[in-house]
């Protein structure tokens, strides 16, 4: 399957990737999840660059790493097909239509919003946006693992967020997300310790990972604050 892709010269492959992702970026409405169906049709169905399992792997990795899912999959597929320049071309391809379209809209947005009838329409649209965000959250909630840790973290974050909001205290989602991750790690390390069946070197590995992730997380934060 891969061989089919490699028949192309690398330059041609980079161009194909760019154009394919440009098309996907220009025609997918509704964000990352809507894009998944299109990506699968294009790369698994039509071009046969990936098998179905490989594709599912990419989606799973994309969901577990930060950033827009569309960017994650574009980078991964691009790298697989044509190395660094493939990933660069794919990522730029998927982003360029958005940047152009939104820039054009932005030019007229303020003037557009001044029309009386547009304001009428947006009064309703705002209500709809609240519903869309809420139902997206609900859908994701149903997909969560049903275990105590999930419910504890979910309720703690929701209560803190809403209380802070109405008291007017600044809330940092960044710190909140990293803290939730650390709680997950902490619980994992504790369960390892409790189980006597796990050999000592198992605990060593997990401790190493904790340190590694902590430095990564603080590095990210430090970098952003500079």
């Amino acid at each position, binding site marked *: 399957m891969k061989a089919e892709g490699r028949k192309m010269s690398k330059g041609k492959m980079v161009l194909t990737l760019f154009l394919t992702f440009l098309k996907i970026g220009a025609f997918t409405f509704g964000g990352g999840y809507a894009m998944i169906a299109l990506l699968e049709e294009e790369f698994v169905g039509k071009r046969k660059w990936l098998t179905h399992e490989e594709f599912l792997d990419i989606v799973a990795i994309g969901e577990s790493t930060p*950033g827009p899912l569309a960017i*994650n999959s574009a980078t991964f597929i691009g790298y697989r097909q044509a190395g660094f320049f493939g990933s660069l071309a794919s990522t730029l391809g998927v982003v360029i239509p958005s940047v152009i379209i939104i820039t054009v809209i932005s030019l007229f947005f303020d003037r557009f919003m001044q029309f009386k009838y547009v304001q009428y329409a947006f009064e309703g*649209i705002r*209500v*709809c946006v609240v519903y869309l965000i809420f139902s997206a959250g609900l859908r994701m909630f149903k997909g969560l693992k049903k275990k105590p840790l999930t419910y504890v973290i979910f309720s703690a974050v929701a209560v803190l967020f*809403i209380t802070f909001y109405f008291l007017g205290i600044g809330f940092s989602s960044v710190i909140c997300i990293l803290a*939730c991750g650390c*709680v997950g790690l902490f619980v994992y390390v504790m369960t390892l310790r409790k189980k006597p069946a796990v050999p000592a070197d198992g605990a060593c590995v*997990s401790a190493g990972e904790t340190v590694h992730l902590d430095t990564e997380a603080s590095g990210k934060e430090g970098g952003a604050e500079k």
Partner: protein
Amino acid sequence: MIYLHLFLSFLKIGAVSFGGGYGMISLVRETVVSNGWLTDTQMMDFIAVSESTPGPIAVNMATFVGFSQGGVLGAILATLGVILPAFLIMLLIASVMRTFMKRKGVNAFLEGVRPGVVALIISTAVTMGLTLLFSIGKDKLSINVFGIILLVVVAGIAIIYKQLVKKKISPIVLIMISAAISLAVNAVFGA
């Protein structure tokens, strides 16, 4: 320096935004409101535009906020900021760290992050909804009755559609329906 500020703000958002476009909304809202870049209402208006235009919601929002603060260059820098962490992380995973995601520690970290992100999304919707539907004025509470009715209608349409067609209704269709209802009601009864 607004350009650097935009770039770094969105870099930070891109680095911790698990859970796709919706996972990013609480991060973006916090950033734009605390910097005084946009109001909560403008943010909601723009989420609707991001939903109704092609492309990743995250990129659309970054471009919009970037443009509103720093023109075309601002739009490009904010977008670069939001995609750079995802790009670099995926590059690392695709090239040298193929098995990184399978590590137990990474998995444990994510199991903590996921419910947190979902809680952020739902709480964002709840706080947005409450401020939209109930505004506390000087000494009295004003209730947006039309908003509450519309919310029930929109939810009803979405749920009935899902029961009948066995598919989620497209966000764009739902946005257009609520725009039409609101337009008609306001035009007939006056604002």
